[in-house]
């Protein structure tokens, strides 16, 4: 088509797309190597890498849900304020005032699904022996990612600031005060007494560090909001990058060593 030709020969087009359309094998490889988004992927993968009965694709689905959570999460941030005055009302507003009204539900459903698919992924990795040497460290990274996923669920649970949220976090965080050494009601609490002064008290133990106060209140809401939206996703993204890198370096998904 003449118009298509003109567009594709224009300076604007050629400044964005430097190579010809990937319609033959050479250009497909060139695009995979030079495109920012595509160069993260391998140029080609083995056929067994997409054998669903072997891989289940649960790792990929989990990552997809992580991206869904990030996008829906950012959208929720446009309407949600993490203060005592507004938190609960803003969650209601997300349901009653915004179009469609199910953005918060999408975020919640994807969160439930992500925990389930993480478990299925770990189960598959175990069944196929893909944790055995030299892949042990990637399994360890995976376990840490599981912990981060559960922490994301834990911190996110408080944000609606309803009775369910407040008491669930109260009960969950009260377990932290019984930690050995670092909890003010745990065994070995006096081990960190320096010069007669208790280092670990109800205002300075692990539970306090988590809550930001001595009980679940406004400081906790803010702290959990930052953990949920910034700190833990950043840590998870970093570990995900290493996790995928390790798979690539070990010959690609489901590849023999």
């Amino acid at each position, binding site marked *: 088509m003449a118009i298509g030709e003109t567009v594709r020969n224009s300076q604007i087009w050629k400044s964005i797309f430097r190579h010809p359309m990937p319609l033959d094998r050479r250009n497909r490889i060139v695009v995979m190597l030079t495109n920012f988004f595509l160069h993260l992927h391998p140029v080609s993968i083995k056929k067994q890498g997409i054998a669903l009965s072997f891989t289940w694709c649960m790792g990929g689905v989990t990552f997809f849900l992580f991206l869904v959570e990030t996008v829906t999460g950012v959208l929720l941030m446009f309407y949600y304020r993490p203060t005592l005055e507004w938190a609960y009302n803003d969650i209601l507003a997300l349901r009653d005032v915004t179009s469609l009204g199910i953005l918060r539900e999408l975020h919640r459903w994807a969160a439930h699904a992500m925990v389930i698919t993480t478990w299925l992924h770990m189960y598959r990795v175990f069944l196929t022996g893909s944790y055995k040497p030299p892949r042990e460290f990637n399994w360890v990274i995976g376990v840490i990612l599981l912990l981060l996923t559960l922490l994301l669920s834990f911190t996110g649970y408080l944000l609606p600031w309803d009775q369910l949220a407040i*008491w669930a976090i*109260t*009960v969950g965080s*009260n*377990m932290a005060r019984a930690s050995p050494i670092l909890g003010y009601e745990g065994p070995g609490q006096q081990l960190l007494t320096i010069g007669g002064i208790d280092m670990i008290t109800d*205002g*300075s133990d692990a539970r*306090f*560090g988590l809550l*930001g*106060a*001595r009980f679940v209140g406004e*400081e906790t809401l803010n702290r959990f909001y930052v953990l949920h939206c910034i700190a833990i996703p950043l840590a998870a993204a970093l570990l995900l990058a290493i996790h995928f890198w390790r798979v690539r370096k070990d010959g690609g998904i489901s590849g023999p060593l």
Partner: protein
Amino acid sequence: MGSFMAIGFTALSATGGLFTLGLARFMFPNVLAEPPSRFKVGFRESFPAGKVETKFVAQFGVWVINSEFQGQQQIYALKTVCTHLGCTPNWLEAEQKFKCPCHGSGFYKDGINFEGPAPRPLERYAIRLSDDGQLEIDKSKAFHEELGQWAEPESYVSV
């Protein structure tokens, strides 16, 4: 005299270590904004013998009780926090016991745990007669029965 690289990386690691320590300290604020811990609840006459007063539970998190404990008639203040995992028990007047809705811990009127997963009795707050004769509770001081602290005179007011 170390090599250029060794000095550089040592300095980097030291800076990284100091940053991590500073980060940990940063997460623990030095000042907290909390409601005042001392408040008055009325005169002794407002609490007849045997009564468990529940009207201060929502605002102050305390039950004010006039009852007998170890042969002594006392007014004491119990903290409304279940010693299992921190929920608020309910006072059941008909059954004369505190029952936690979360996991079923049960406490007698004096706060002693007798059923469910609670490992120890409810805690008492410090209570005293203030200058104007009213009962004043101080939430900054808690008394644990299992540590023998209910014998301390600050943990009750005799009637």
